[in-house]
């Protein structure tokens, strides 16, 4: 038997965008076990809900994560709205959906860039991030923020988009779709990418379900599960079908995310076509009392929001379970049996967001 050794991996590592730490148990170059430990960037944001007004907390919920910011704000607001029995105007729901889908494109392009970077494919990395800039510019023009939008509020949204702005988004989406063709070709057909990703980190469907994988990670293993089908925000009016792949390897996860970008483009166009007129928010009176539990599909997977209110302006509890929390157990499973050199890439394919996980 080969000699066992333990190699600490992270929290600072060139390929990791965020500080996750793993103790890798190695037998020669083969990983036989991985022990994750988190907590390096815990900020106690959930606890702050007891100190801040429930309307003010939206700004803090949005700052749990930079990339899923819009979703966290929306998940928190929708939970509080359900507790208070507020019916949000239809236009606000559509606006939330449009921003949410734009966030998905932004998040997936960021991930594709990081994946290309992890493979050492620098020009592909730059192409991905160059495209992502167009979405960030649209965020800046429509919401006023490039990454953290602060558009969600309890009762609706804070900013409206006029028809010229919606037309500009539709134009940008069309341009991006055309610009993305070479990117798609390269990611899905290029020999270099295929040789690096195919067959790497295979997660079979039964294991994915057993280990509780969520989001593109689960769908890449062939499970048709997408929380958007529950019909929160304006998704009930839109045609959402889960994008799946069957192989369950790193290439399949890349394929699912690429196809989800196209799906998001279609959803944005559909939402812009169907958006009704009217108010963007309703006045909120009184304080919430009760509890609610809701799920939304973040770009990285299913996120769970739990709110418990006591009738005062401060909530008793706000709990957020992020997609990365669920994807860590399957990631540890994936690492068993792989080579040490493949560890960074496998970690990256779950699209880890440690800021979200540790809150």
């Amino acid at each position, binding site marked *: 038997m080969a000699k066992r050794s333990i190699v600490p991996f992270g929290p600072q590592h060139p390929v990791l965008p965020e500080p996750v730490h793993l103790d890798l148990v190695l037998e020669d170059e083969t990983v036989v076990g991985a022990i994750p430990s988190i907590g390096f960037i815990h900020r106690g944001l959930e606890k702050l809900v007891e100190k*801040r*007004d429930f309307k*003010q*907390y939206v*700004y*803090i919920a*949005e*700052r749990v994560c930079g990339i899923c910011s819009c979703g966290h704000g929306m998940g928190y607001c929708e939970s509080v709205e359900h507790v208070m029995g507020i019916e949000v105007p239809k236009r606000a729901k559509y606006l939330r959906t449009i921003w949410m889908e734009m966030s998905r494109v932004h998040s997936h392009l960021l991930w594709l860039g990081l994946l290309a970077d992890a493979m050492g494919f620098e*020009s*592909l990395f730059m*192409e991905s991030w*160059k495209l992502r*800039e167009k979405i960030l*510019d649209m965020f*800046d*023009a*429509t*919401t*006023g*923020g490039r990454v*953290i939008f*602060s558009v969600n509020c309890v009762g609706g949204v*804070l*900013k409206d988009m006029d028809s010229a702005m919606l037309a500009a988004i539709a134009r940008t989406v069309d341009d991006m779709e055309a610009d993305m063709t*070479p990117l798609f*070709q*390269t990611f899905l*057909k*290029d*020999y270099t990418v*295929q*040789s690096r990703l*195919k067959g790497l980190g295979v997660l079979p469907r039964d294991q994915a379900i057993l280990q509780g994988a969520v989001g593109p990670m689960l769908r890449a293993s062939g499970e048709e599960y997408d929380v958007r089908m529950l019909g929160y925000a304006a998704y009930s009016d839109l045609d959402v079908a889960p994008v799946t792949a069957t192989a369950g390897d790193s290439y399949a996860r890349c394929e699912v995310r690429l196809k989800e970008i196209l799906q998001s483009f279609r959803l944005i166009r559909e939402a812009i076509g169907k958006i009704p007129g009217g108010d963007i928010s309703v006045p909120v*009176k009184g304080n919430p009392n009760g509890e609610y539990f809701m799920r939304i599909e973040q770009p990285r997977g299913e996120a769970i929001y739990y709110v418990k209110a006591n009738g005062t302006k401060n909530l008793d509890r706000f709990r957020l379970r992020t997609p990365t929390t669920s994807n860590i157990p399957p990631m540890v499973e994936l690492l068993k049996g792989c080579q040490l050199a493949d560890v960074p890439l496998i970690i990256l394919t779950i699209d880890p967001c440690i800021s979200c996980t540790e809150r």
Partner: protein
Amino acid sequence: MNDTKIFTYARTAMKNLFHKPATTSYPFEPAQFPERMRGHIEIDTAECISCGLCMRSCPTGAIRVDRAAGTWTINRFDCVQCGSCANLCPKKCLHMTPGYTQPAPQKSEETFELPKKAQPAGASQKPAMDPEKCVYCTLCAKKCPQGAIEVDRAEKTWKLDASKCVGCTLCASSCPKKAIEMK
């Protein structure tokens, strides 16, 4: 496995070589900011009534309003540009303006002197309650940023401390029975 293909990315690489850069040559070319950009907070001191709502609503505690000294202070390094203060300001004297503030070697505060004119416009107006309409719901007392209103539901009393009142009109706008008028 596919056959090895070389230079599949060559077209993009060549295009990038002879194309205008995707980035701009900042600072030689000034940055273009969209109209809605939340760059930094600006205050119109002439309109401010020192009600302190901005200070209370700020999630990071970056704003300090000193009514006695007549100053409005912001720590721009603590500000996260959420726009909460500008959304809540009853006089709409706070604005989110495009463009970033200057960097500095250390965190510092910026203090604005509020003009000491007789009374800012509207501040001379105080709320007056109509006892026929009032249901003593206490909403006005809860909304008052200065705690100038005291309502006793059991005793059916409504008291205003005129020295604390800044005339922000929040009580009048929040009253569900429209029982408060600014006079």
